Every structure is written in structure tokens, then in C-alpha cells.
């Protein structure tokens, strides 16, 4: 029972924050809404038994990425965005097409795919740090190493792009 209530609360928080992200005019409001989405998604991961990923979500997204966003918004002094003319196609067809996308995905999930099991909090805890680590360092060792090189390249790229030219 308690997990149903938790799911409903945090799903509502996630959807409201998502709408707020799209509708707010100031980037800092959008950034705070994004933080709401990420926090509630971390709780949903916990309900699905992914403990390690819930904590990673909070640390990596809620901590590092959001600090980076807020830092850049403050640094660039980004103000309210000016509404400019959108293309007529996006104005007329954008919202109906998006609703079609959601309806199609919902139909696919409810009717086409085989019925899913029910989520019972605590009945399956597969995502502890022990299990993730074991799989990460045996089966997925090569992708893990490749992705560490990717991170290294990203750091170098960020430094090269953002440095100040010294003449």
C-alpha cells in the first residue's frame, strides 16, 4: 500500500516539474524543476529495487550536473528568454503530434506488450553496489574501460573549449 502512495506522489511531482521545466520562461526556474524531476526519479528507482542507481542519480545528476547548469546560468547571467516567432508548422501540428506520440506509446505499453508484473517494494533487490560492481567488472569490463576513456576525452574537450585564449 505504502509503495502505491509513494509512486503516485513522486510520479505527480515528476510530471508537474516536467511541465514546469517546459513552461517557465527563466532558465533558473527550469533548472530547479529539472532538479525536482531528478529527485523524484531517484525515489522511483529505489522503489524498483535499484539502490545503487538511486544514489548515483542523486550524486551525479542532483549534485554534479545541476551544479554545472546553475553555474553556467549564473556565469552567463542568462535572463528571461525572448519569445520569438515559431514556425507555423510547429504551432499548428506540434501539440497534436506530441499527444499522438504519448497515446501511441501508452497503447503499445498497455495493449501490445505482454502483461507486466506488479512492483512490490523490497521483493527484489538486485541493484546493490555488490551486484552492480560484480557485473561491471566481469561481463561489462570492456564497456567500462571504454567509457572511462570517454570521460577522459570529455574532460579534455571541456577544458579546450572553455579556456581563455592567451595572446
Amino acid at each position, binding site marked *: 500500500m505504502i509503495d*502505491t502512495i509513494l509512486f503516485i506522489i513522486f510520479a505527480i511531482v515528476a510530471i508537474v516539474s516536467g511541465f514546469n521545466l*517546459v513552461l517557465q520562461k527563466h532558465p533558473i526556474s527550469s533548472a530547479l524543476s529539472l532538479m525536482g524531476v531528478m529527485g523524484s526519479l531517484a525515489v522511483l528507482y529505489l522503489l524498483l529495487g535499484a539502490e545503487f*542507481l538511486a544514489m548515483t542519480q542523486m550524486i551525479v545528476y542532483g549534485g554534479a550536473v545541476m551544479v*554545472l547548469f546553475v553555474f553556467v546560468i549564473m556565469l552567463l547571467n542568462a535572463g528571461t528568454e525572448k519569445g520569438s516567432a515559431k514556425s507555423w508548422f510547429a504551432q499548428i501540428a506540434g501539440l497534436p503530434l*506530441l499527444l499522438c506520440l504519448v497515446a501511441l506509446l501508452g497503447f503499445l505499453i498497455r495493449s501490445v506488450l505482454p502483461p507486466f508484473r506488479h512492483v512490490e517494494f523490497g521483493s527484489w533487490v*538486485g541493484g546493490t553496489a555488490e551486484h552492480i560492481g560484480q557485473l561491471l567488472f566481469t561481463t561489462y569490463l570492456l564497456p567500462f574501460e571504454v567509457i572511462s576513456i570517454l570521460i577522459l576525452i570529455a574532460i579534455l574537450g571541456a577544458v579546450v*573549449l572553455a579556456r581563455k585564449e592567451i595572446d
Partner: protein
Amino acid sequence: MEHVPLSWYLILSAVLFALGVAGFIYRKSVLTVFMSIELMLNAVNLSFISFSYELQRIDGQIYSFFVMVVAAAEAAVGLAIILTIFKNRGTLQIDEVDSMKL
């Protein structure tokens, strides 16, 4: 109804993804477009973890972990690119940066 069906999680993921697409298409500030991309990545992560619960295997969680790492790298490089755009052009409006447009 005692427990939540897993399809609700997947529908939540679809709704969040659609919101991300809406933000990506409608917003005019580079920073907000970038945040919408992060929202879409998060929605996909949620469905990876839901399918991981359905199959009772943690491979899906590993993929989700990789998506998180790639998103962090992308955020670092993307925000550096935004800094460079602002330094060179003095604007954050996405439709004023159109020199590669036909």
C-alpha cells in the same frame, strides 16, 4: 489494487520523454533546450530500470549507469560549447545562432 503495475512506470517514462521533446522543440534558450535533453535521457533511464525489474536481471541497470556517465560527459562538453557560443556571439537565443542554416 495493492501494488503498482509496472506499466504505470513505463507510461510515466513516456510522458516525461514527450515533455522533453516538447521542451527541445518549443524553447528558444540554449540552456533550456539542453535541460530538455537531460530530461529525455532521464526518462529513458526510468524505462531501462523498469524493464530490469520486469526481467529480474540487473543488466538494464548497467546500461542505465552507462547512460548516466555519457550524460555527465555530454553535459560538461555541451556547457563548454554554450560558454564558447556566448563568448563569440553574446547571445543564448537558439534562433540567432543560424550560420549553418541554409
